[in-house]
């Protein structure tokens, strides 16, 4: 607070009221206690001149900590430090913007030495760093303590107001007037009640003294804002509690049921659609040049496991609980769990093929069977023949030793190795390599391999007639599955902040005190904001009372403090 009060002060006012240490204006009559009677500066009206809680002559450790957080100056330092700290985090992208990087090398590679220093200083995760969180915690502490320390004295001061104020209190308001009036004190005051009421004031009189007040609630605005902010910060903190928060990015190949880990839910992407704007929907300048996406949509169905859950040796029993067409701004939502459209991949993924076993010499077909890429059957029959599946390779390749291996678990270049038994075949069976994809068949020379394995006179082939024999998952939709049970509290906090802002900024607490005596009217008026509006209101009130006072002439000196 501005100015240090002298160490020993007589806190008893001339009106007889005993004030606590730190009081600026007498709690009863408003007489300024701290500076000389001859000063004409406008009064310091914060908290109506009451002593703040934390002002004590002899502070201990707890008082010191309390006073530290109770200081607005400290609060402003905290705000400015947080402001500067947050800007640091925007110099380079934060680690959290990437899904798969190794930050210890990425920053150096991408941004050179500056990036390396940035990473080493820990600025690549500014907003999760201990010092940033500490700043936020200190702001939270300051919010609580500052508010508590001020709202209680202010409440007391405003709920016990004296109507008759000391003359010095009135003349040293920023809006003040002293002028001669002809009428008697009580007549003038009773005449003044009506016009003030019309202006929306609550009016109280005490003989020749009057107090008019309106929109006191606006004074609580800042404290409501602070309460809202505290709730907001606590809610953000609560999001981290176990069980209240879940955040996963999952792949959903079209048509496949996928378990959502850590839940009893399963989700199927029944169909994923990407739409682009047609040429006629685009401005002329873009036609034929730009491709703009119009829609990403995943038709999703959510299932809940009802029995045999969590035991991988059994098939879970599922019940459909929700379905929704998930779009970018329109997630699927079920009991607090939400699935957001996040990304997509239009690469088709082979799921199964249904080849026919044919006699390449005669063209005779022995029938077909379905060959799944994942968990296939191990033996098939086609006509008189049985095919035993011996090996499968999802992405066919050769190891350093020249043995066939799979290079990845994804069916990019699948290959299957069968042993076929039946009429006119060797007793041990005929080995047969099968590449379902035409490209692979040529690339890996399926025929040459089989000729070598089966020898002369080989006559059986596996063939896929047309596309009906191929089952692919056309695309994969990536969804972001989240649970955030603390969100309602975040919104409540934000709502309270808004309420406080509106109350505090769009209304102003206005008070007019006046006393009439010895043929003189002394008027003082105070507001917490918008002096211009107050002066206009006082001037128009005085006009109704037949006193001509220009708005400007009401102004009393320059800036307080």
């Amino acid at each position, binding site marked *: 607070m501005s100015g240090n009060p002298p160490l020993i002060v007589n806190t008893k006012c001339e009106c007889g009221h005993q004030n606590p240490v730190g009081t600026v204006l007498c709690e009863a009559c408003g007489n300024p206690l701290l500076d000389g009677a001859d000063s004409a500066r406008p009064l310091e009206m914060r908290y109506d001149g009451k002593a703040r*809680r934390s002002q004590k002559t002899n502070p201990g450790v*707890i008082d010191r*900590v*309390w006073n530290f957080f109770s200081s607005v100056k400290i609060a402003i330092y905290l705000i400015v430090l947080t402001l500067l700290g947050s800007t640091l985090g925007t110099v380079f992208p934060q680690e959290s913007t990437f899904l*798969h990087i190794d930050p210890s090398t990425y920053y150096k590679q991408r941004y050179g030495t500056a990036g390396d220093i940035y990473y080493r200083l820990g600025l690549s995760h500014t907003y*999760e*760093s*201990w010092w940033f*969180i*500490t700043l*936020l*915690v*200190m702001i*939270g*502490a300051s919010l*609580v*303590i500052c508010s*508590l320390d001020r709202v*209680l004295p202010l409440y007391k001061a405003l709920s016990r107001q004296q109507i008759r104020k000391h003359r010095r209190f009135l003349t040293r308001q920023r809006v003040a007037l002293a002028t001669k009036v002809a009428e008697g004190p009580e007549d003038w005051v009773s005449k003044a009640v009506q016009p003030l009421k019309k202006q929306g004031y609550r009016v109280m009189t005490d003989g020749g003294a009057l107090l008019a007040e309106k929109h006191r609630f606006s004074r609580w605005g800042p404290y409501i804002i602070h309460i809202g902010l505290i709730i907001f910060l*606590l809610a953000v*903190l609560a999001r*981290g509690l176990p069980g209240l928060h879940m955040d*996963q990015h999952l792949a959903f190949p079209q048509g496949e049921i*996928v*378990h959502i*880990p850590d839940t009893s839910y399963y989700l199927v992407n029944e169909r994923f659609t990407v739409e682009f704007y047609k040429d006629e929907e685009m401005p002329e300048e873009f036609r034929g040049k730009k491709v703009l996406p119009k829609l990403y949509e995943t038709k999703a169905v959510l299932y809940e496991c009802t029995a045999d859950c*969590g*035991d*991988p*040796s059994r098939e879970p029993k599922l019940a459909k609980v929700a379905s929704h067409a998930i779009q970018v701004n329109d997630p699927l939502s079920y009991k607090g769990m939400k699935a957001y459209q996040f990304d997509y991949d239009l690469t088709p993924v082979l799921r199964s093929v249904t080849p026919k076993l044919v006699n390449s010499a005669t063209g005779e077909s022995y029938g077909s069977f379905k060959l799944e890429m*994942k*968990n*296939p059957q*191990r033996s098939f029959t086609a006509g008189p023949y049985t095919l035993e*599946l011996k*090996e*499968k390779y*999802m*992405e066919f390749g050769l*190891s350093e030793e020249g043995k066939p*291996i*799979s*290079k*990845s*678990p994804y069916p990019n270049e699948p290959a299957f190795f069968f042993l076929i038994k039946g009429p006119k075949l060797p007793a041990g069976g005929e080995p047969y390599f099968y590449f379902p994809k035409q490209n692979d068949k040529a690339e890996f020379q399926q025929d040459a391999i089989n000729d070598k394995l089966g020898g002369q006179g080989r006559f059986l082939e596996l063939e896929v007639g047309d596309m009906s024999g191929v089952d692919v998952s056309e695309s994969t939709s990536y969804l972001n599955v989240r649970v955030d049970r603390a969100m309602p509290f975040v919104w409540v906090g934000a709502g309270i902040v808004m309420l406080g802002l509106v109350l505090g900024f769009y209304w102003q607490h206005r008070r007019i005190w006046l006393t009439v005596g010895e043929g003189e009217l002394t008027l003082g008026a105070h507001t917490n904001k918008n002096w211009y509006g107050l002066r206009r209101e006082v001037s128009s009130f005085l006009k109704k009372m037949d006193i001509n006072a220009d708005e400007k002439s009401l102004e009393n000196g320059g800036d307080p403090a």
Partner: protein
Amino acid sequence: MGKARRPVQIMILVLIVLLGGYAVGTTAFGGDGKPKEGGRAPSFELLGLDGKTHSLDEYQGRPVVLNFWGSWCAPCVKEMPALEAQWEKWKAHGVIVVGINVGEDQMTVQNFVNGVGVSFPVLMDQDREAVRSYGISPLPTTFFITAKGTIDTIHIGQLDLGTLDAQIGKLVNR
């Protein structure tokens, strides 16, 4: 607040310290949710090649070597014989080696196990749930878990016989 002022002040300050400590502790030092050395090993329930469901709990009281592997991953394939040898050597001491296959189907895993001659239990994580809870990114990754269920060491990359032996020895002597 009147006379109750001091207790109220103390209560508020204590609350701020507790909540603040929690906030700084969880966000700044809590990490990314991946298990760390010294932390508890996350539990799992996975289907074994034997057709039964296995969980980490059933190995409680025994040191566990948890190896995440895939048949397509060359270093995984290369370290398999070392794992098998150590399994044979240490199983009398109560050590159990568990292989968790990442994302492949039963046929692939079975063929691989038969081909290489693995005799320790192998589990299949087709939906990659254990992969997620253990925060695995490159393969192979091996977790050395004490008899009490805490993670002693995490080894990323191929293991050789010597390291493996030393690690298991350390685990047994705990």
